[in-house]
């Protein structure tokens, strides 16, 4: 008998079709952590909804949660499709996967706008600094001076996903590295508990087109330069275990659903609930030339998109029938009277 989780499902039930991405691609590691997180949290696959745009990264929702509904949409347009779809059934948990090209080149407009709408969704950007699927062109997150086989050197400045998210009022902002499985998994779990938009910028190396050791999105560089803000862990509501809280050493963030994020101090104490701090920290990471990872910013207060629109949380909108949607016959007289 294979192991099952609290809802009686084997881990296999959380997998999707076999991956067709390159062996060693960072995106596969992230898919595996999505599977693991969903299994660990004992989510019912039918309670999850998946979204993606176009790219190698955006293909990956095929390779996890095969029993969940999903939409592999258009290049750069995933946020709009997700925004509309979230209204169908407010009880579903949404996981979206995009690429750096998908979200910071063609799709930067939709990326910014879904942030300001605080759509309740985990939004993972599998960031490799290149276009994988179209074979190795620069994306907007590529560092200035990066040299690629058929492209020469990149003359432009990079876009920083985290900075963009912070200035767009994102309510959950984290950065991680596909090579750090534990941190990726715990962040995904926490993001799933966030009632709002959770941005995860995960450095996810493209082993085929951008993995030279000195490239900012390579395994080599990320391993060498990763500098976690804290030791991050997530405690689901049901498993309220005793966590030893030491003043000045441990921080706890309580989520809407009662679960907690536990942050253990590493070098310095870092308060992720202060946006100005967060920006300073990113700035500092440039100066120190490190890959800062962990929960950079969180604010559990703002309304989510669905709250802003006063949506029913009990009965999904897509199960309402005519009696709740079509005004009664008498209403037509009122309408005609309103005309002249």
């Amino acid at each position, binding site marked *: 008998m294979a192991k099952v989780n609290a809802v009686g499902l084997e881990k296999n039930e959380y997998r999707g079709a076999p991956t067709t991405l390159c062996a060693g691609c960072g995106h596969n590691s992230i898919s595996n952590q999505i599977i693991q997180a969903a299994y660990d949290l004992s989510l019912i696959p*039918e309670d999850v909804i998946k979204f993606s745009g176009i790219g190698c990264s955006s293909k990956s929702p095929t390779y996890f949660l095969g029993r969940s509904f999903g939409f592999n949409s258009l290049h750069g347009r995933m946020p709009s499709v997700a925004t509309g779809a979230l209204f169908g059934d407010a009880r579903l948990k949404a996981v979206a996967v995009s690429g750096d090209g998908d979200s910071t080149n063609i799709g930067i407009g939709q990326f910014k706008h879904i942030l300001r709408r605080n759509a309740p969704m985990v939004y993972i950007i599998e960031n490799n600094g290149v276009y994988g699927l179209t074979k190795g062109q620069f994306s907007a997150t590529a560092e200035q001076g990066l040299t690629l086989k058929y492209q020469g050197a990149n003359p432009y400045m990079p876009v920083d996903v985290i900075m963009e998210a912070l200035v767009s009022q994102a309510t959950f902002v984290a950065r991680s590295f596909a090579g750090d499985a534990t941190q990726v998994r715990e962040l995904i779990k926490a993001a799933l508990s966030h009632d709002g938009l959770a941005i995860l910028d995960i450095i996810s190396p493209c082993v085929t087109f951008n993995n030279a050791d000195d490239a900012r999105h390579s395994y080599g560089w990320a391993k060498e330069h990763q500098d976690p803000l804290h030791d991050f862990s997530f405690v689901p509501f049901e498993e309220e275990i005793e966590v030893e809280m030491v003043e000045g050493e441990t921080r706890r963030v309580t989520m809407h659903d009662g679960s907690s994020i536990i942050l253990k101090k590493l070098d310095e104490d870092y308060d992720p609930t202060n946006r100005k701090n967060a920006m300073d920290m990113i700035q500092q990471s440039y100066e120190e030339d490190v890959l800062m990872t962990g929960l950079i910013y969180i604010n559990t207060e703002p309304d989510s998109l669905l709250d802003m629109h006063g949506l029913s*949380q009990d009965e999904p909108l897509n199960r309402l029938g005519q009696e709740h949607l079509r005004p009664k*016959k008498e209403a037509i007289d009122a309408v005609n009277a309103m005309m002249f």
Partner: protein
Amino acid sequence: MTVQAMTKEEAQSSGERIVNDFSMTVATMNGSGSQTSNLTLLRAMFKMGIPVSGKNLFPSNIQGLPTWYTIRASKDGYLARRETHEIIVAMNADTFGQDLESVVPGGAFYYGDHLKFEINRDDIAVYTFPAKKLAKDSGAPAALRDYVANMAYVGVLAHMIGIDMEQIKGALDFHFSGKEKPIALNMGVIEAAAEWAAENLEKQDPYYVEAMDGTEGKIMADGNTAAALGAIFGGVQFASWYPITPASSVAEALTINIGKYRDDLYEGGKTYAIIQSEDELAAIGMALGAGWAGLRSMTSTSGPGISLMTEFAGLAYYSETPVVIWDVQRVGPSTGLPTRTAQGDITQVAFLGHGDTHNIMLFPACAQECFEFGWKAFDIAERVQAPVFVMSDLDLGMNQWMTDPFEYPDVDMDRGKVVWEQDLENWEGRYGRYLDKDGDGIPYRTVPGNKHPKSAWFARGTGHDEYAAYTERGDDWEHNMERLIKKYDTARQYLPESDIFEKEGATIGIIAYGSTHPAIEEACDKLEEDDLKADYLRLRSYPFRDEVQEFIQKHDKVYVVEMNRDGQMHQLLSLAYPEMVNKLVSITKHDGLPLNARWTSEAIQAEEN
């Protein structure tokens, strides 16, 4: 057929009265606040029982450029734009000369005495009135004076052509929702102006209104408001949009009205959401997402937005996602004439999307039909699992139309082939999202939130098989595309049938669609007066239903009349019926104005001779 013009002297001496049969145009400056005055005139005449239509010809500008508002009164019930101006009220110095020239011989020209121009015509009646002084004397605050000056022409006209003061009062009452202060202020100017006219002006032209019973059971409405109200009765659950003239008022009317009619139907929370998106890509993206998630969803836009929606239209077609798109057309290409009307998006929308995309279109022709298609489009989209485009235009969407009252939907909502947990429990064999179980090309659909372990599927624009699995196999692709065209064929039976108007002994046929309907009807009467009888088929949907083919078969010659340069519907008909191409004659007008009957009948006559 030309309008019989009289000289001023003839008019005066004959004492002939031309009653309820003229066009009256007010020339003002954009942003000068004349809309209340114009609507007051229109509504008062309507309440006198006179069939009227009101059309605003406005520039793409907020303030300062010329704008004209034309009211046609027609005892015969013709609502199209009339090509002549029998009465003109000039309030704009910039267009004074042109306005003066436009009055038909024997017509009437009114102008505010603050406009100091020479009058170089003696074949018309000319009246001048102290608009500014009347405004000043009204005691209106200085900031409101220019606006109130527009009420002066309402009063002068009321006296000179005979509009019932009680009805004017009623119109103001409606406009200001019964608020006493503005009603009193405006009515004061109108009455003072009417009195002034009675004392100072002598009627020299033949144009009058008289109460009649031509508006019994009718309402006045604009197509965009009607569309929004129809959508509300259609159970719209999601709407996303981006502002653009002439479509904005669809979403705005939805926003303003939906709560009134829907909030008491469900206690658990809102049953709808309306989002002003960042652009039209996002507008249709959101609508498509909502449609895929099982909501009745829509977006509304005009040509430039349609262009941006192209990629998503293809995705909606290929992923088989229901979504309703209102295209309130304006003149293109490019920014074109953004505030003028056209039927110029027909071929683009028919094939919107790359690859072999075919789309469904509906063509409303009056405000009541905008209401009807407002709800019906959802039924069709969900039944066929495809985007449905409703092709309105600026004239229909933004102008005031006399129309039949809106009718409550005569059928229950059709949610199409959506299956839930219980259905899948009883499902025979394996469920496949794109499996043609019924042989009609329309597969069964599950939507997110369905808890059955076999319900989920991954939607995509890439090649997929009957079970929605990714495939790049050529035969899978062909198989699916062939089913899609079969589905499109099936769709015809769910589309609105053409309206056919036959005349005994007709020798020619006319095909037209949308807002040109009043002009075509009137043109048919004009042709008949000249002994040319035409049968007329008004298209209501595309792809064409069988009656269209039969109609063309029955006639030797069929004129396809439309408002674009290239004869776009003529092109679609030619594609659909290549064997009958020789019978089809394209008649097109694309000057940005609503079609008029005289031009239409003359264009057809010219072809016949």
